[in-house]
């Protein structure tokens, strides 16, 4: 274990010394500086998953695993009820929310499906676009200097504020929702993938430089696999974000459209609180399930990366 640490330190100091090598990704300073915000999220999501990973063979049946969650949910439920009992006009009782769902489950399912598909299709668009831009930007310094400022401007523009304008431009169909979702997921993916593509250690690049591996080979054999941990970190951030994007876009085009966002805005203007919170509950469950699926996939794909996660923790 200590041995590992020593060698890692050596690798890092080598990295610093070799910064001026011709094959190295010189001049990534701008990109990495801009990355800070994006990867901060990634880093936290990585470290958060660390303790669970250290014990992969845990059984879901062991009380130490399920009891904390159940207790936490119970406490939250009781607190909710305590507040709701005296403020029914602010917070509906849990029973009322449950009843809202049970009386018309297909209504919620249908709207949830619409929001989910908007979120996922938008996410796929954002993901593909961000991935392509990340590869372009890491491969060409000129294009990086052209594209990165635009990407940064895009990132600081509140997408929530663009949504109404997009509805004006594209109508009440799915287009504005997909655009908002794609925009909102684009930047975190871009930054993480750029960091990931640049995360190949300099000694590995040196070995493959002496073999004169082509740029395409370095990209496909070294950079893309190296970026996977960062891609998953990004996915964990943007899956929930994509739902936010879809809902925000639906808010901006109420009435004529469908989806849980529309349900919320229509119901709240009619003061049907139980329906509002039932829709919110559906959104929360959707987000949690998506996150769970990504984590599951990550565990399968990144088996080789486990040691690193342990070391980081």
């Amino acid at each position, binding site marked *: 274990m200590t041995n590992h640490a020593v060698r890692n330190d050596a690798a890092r100091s*080598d990295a610093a010394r070799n910064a001026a090598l011709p094959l190295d990704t010189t001049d990534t300073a701008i990109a990495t500086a801009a990355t800070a915000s994006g990867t901060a999220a990634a880093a936290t999501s990585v470290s958060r998953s660390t303790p669970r990973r250290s014990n992969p063979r845990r059984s879901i049946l062991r009380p130490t695993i399920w009891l904390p969650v159940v207790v936490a949910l119970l406490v939250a439920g009781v607190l909710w009820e305590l507040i709701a009992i005296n403020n029914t006009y602010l917070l509906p009782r849990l029973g009322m929310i449950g009843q809202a769902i049970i009386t018309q489950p297909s209504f919620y399912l249908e709207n949830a499906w619409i929001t989910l598909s908007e979120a996922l299709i938008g996410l796929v668009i954002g993901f593909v676009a961000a991935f392509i831009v990340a590869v372009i930007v890491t491969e060409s310094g000129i294009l990086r200097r052209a594209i990165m400022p635009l990407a940064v401007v895009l990132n600081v523009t509140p997408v929530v504020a663009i949504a109404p304008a997009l509805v004006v431009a594209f109508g009440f169909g799915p287009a504005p929702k997909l655009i908002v979702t794609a925009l909102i997921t684009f930047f975190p993916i871009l930054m993480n993938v750029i960091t990931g593509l640049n995360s190949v250690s300099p000694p590995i690049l040196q070995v493959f430089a002496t073999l004169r591996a082509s740029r395409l080979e370095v990209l496909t054999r070294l950079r893309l696999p190296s970026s996977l941990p960062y891609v998953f970190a990004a996915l964990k951030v943007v899956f929930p974000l994509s739902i936010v994007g879809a809902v925000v876009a639906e808010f901006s085009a109420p009435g004529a459209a469908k989806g849980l966002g529309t349900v919320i805005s229509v119901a709240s203007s009619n003061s049907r609180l139980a329906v509002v919170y039932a829709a919110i509950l559906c959104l929360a469950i959707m987000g949690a399930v998506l996150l769970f699926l990504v984590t599951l996939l990550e565990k399968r794909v990144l088996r080789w990366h486990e040691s690193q996660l342990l070391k980081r923790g």
Partner: protein
Amino acid sequence: MSTTRANASPDQIVVSDALKIYGGSGSSAQVTALSHVDLTVDRGQFVSIIGPSGCGKSTLLRLIAGLETADSGDVSVFGADPDQACAAKMIGFVPQVPALLPWLSVVGNVTLPSKVNRRADALRRTLPGHVHRDPADPRALLAKIGLGDALDRLPHQLSGGMQQRVAIARAFAIQADVLLMDEPFSALDEFTREAIQLQLLELWEQMRTTVVFVTHSVSEAVVLSDRVVVMSARPGRIEAVVDIDLPRPRRQGLLESAAMHEYEDLIRGKLQTAWASGPVAR
């Protein structure tokens, strides 16, 4: 750049009058990493480069590996310039850290070099300095170096010593004409290090590849090498060249022999001179 040069022999690696300066011209942070460095390595030789840290050993290795270019002077690898030698996969590089791909198994890591730059084989045949050998079987190679039962493991499941042995097997696997190793054992503990040294020797004696081996351990240099090049720092230059005239194959018993200690003392002496003669004594 022409393939053949006046001083370029197809059976030697030749570095002549190499100069390497880091830091832009005129800047105060300039470092003369190498100055007037001449080095000749014959085919099939095992040559070690030893010297205090910062004396330019890695820089010299990187010049031969074509990872850096000299500011003046000439480098040729078996008659070709380093760029061509790399393009023909004549050079196997072993860095200080194992530099394995964590998502590939041991076998995957060793076979990857043969999967990239596939045009190298055609180019090799056109170069007079390349000696053709049949491609090595990666599994046999790994078995020889003691990793026969770890073929399908991932790097993070291996000890540091095992990882470095994979890196060495990877370099041998492409049947390169020269292996360049930059302090490959410096992160290992003493016992692992001695075991790996002998395994490297055994492999080298079978494969008869040329090796340029950077180290900061005097005994390692003597045990392994036909020739030890002693460097001194600021500016990095070659202080002395010592031929090690010990019988091969070299085995465990040699480590305690009197002849070996004589060579060690000789080289330590040269290193001390190198140390003292540096303009900046530290």
